């Protein structure tokens, strides 16, 4: 069976004797002074300042490099070729209408069955 009742171990509480507790903390504080002093000096040194700048500067440089590469890759893509029209080409050519259709459009007449068959064959080719 499990024992769920908490024990009273207060006599072992190191902070119960507050005087002694404070002396322990004061002792740690005092013994830590040389290391804390060394750390303060290091933190003020130019090398440390440079090192503290290095990380954000490196991050910024990496971002700039990534953006530059992206921009360059966009620049390298071939530009879309503009549609060049032949000087003699009419509206039908510009709209890329098959020749058989353009013939009857040019002549301003209704298409015959042959015209329609030719146009269909043109599409299928």
């Amino acid at each position, binding site marked *: 069976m*499990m*024992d*769920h*009742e*908490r*024990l*009273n*171990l*207060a*006599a*072992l*509480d*190191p*902070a*119960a004797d507050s*005087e*002694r507790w404070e002396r*322990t*903390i004061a*002792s*740690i*504080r005092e*013994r*830590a*002074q040389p*290391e*804390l*002093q*060394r*750390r*303060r*000096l*290091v*933190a003020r040194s130019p090398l440390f300042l440079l090192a503290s700048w290095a990380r954000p500067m490196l991050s910024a440089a990496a971002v700039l490099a990534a953006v530059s590469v992206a921009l360059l890759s966009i620049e390298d893509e071939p530009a879309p070729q503009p549609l060049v029209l032949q000087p003699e080409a009419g509206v039908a050519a510009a709209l890329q209408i098959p020749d058989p259709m353009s013939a009857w459009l040019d002549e301003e007449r209704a298409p015959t069955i042959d015209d329609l068959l030719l146009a269909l064959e043109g599409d299928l080719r």
Partner: protein
Amino acid sequence: MHEPDALLVERARSGDGEAFEKLVRRHLRTAHLVALAIVAEPADADDICQDAFLVALERLDECRNPDRFLAWLLRIVRNRAHSLHRRERVRAALPLEGAAREADRRADPVADAARAELRERLIDGLRGLSEVQREILLLHDLEGWRHREIAELLGIREGTVRAHLSYARRNMRERLGGALCED
């Protein structure tokens, strides 16, 4: 305002004594109990904790996850306690003349003597447990940690923590009886 450990560690790294002292005040008690669980001697636990905090300060740059400063500190405490445990017992935390002066300063020497006697009996009781049972018992019943937190710290299952705790309590009650009654 409660400053997170990570912030205090960052400040202590730059030599901020106030931040370091806050870390000491926040974690010294837990560190002491963990050391006590290993060496079962309060004076030794005191020495171990003082040294552990100084070592931690010197190696603060190696603390890669400052949010988990306590877990990192307790590893240092454990290592130092184990190495001390293997060697002969260290000297008492206070020299004899210092202890005598301290006794003179005390307001109620009778109450202090009774408290010291009870502490001795509890320490004797703890010596009858395994190291892990002592650690679980002290962290749970004195420091107020939850089963889950202890399991995470020790790298064992929560059910194992409960079983150890139950065994430790029963064992202590059998050994000490009335000494464990609530005040």
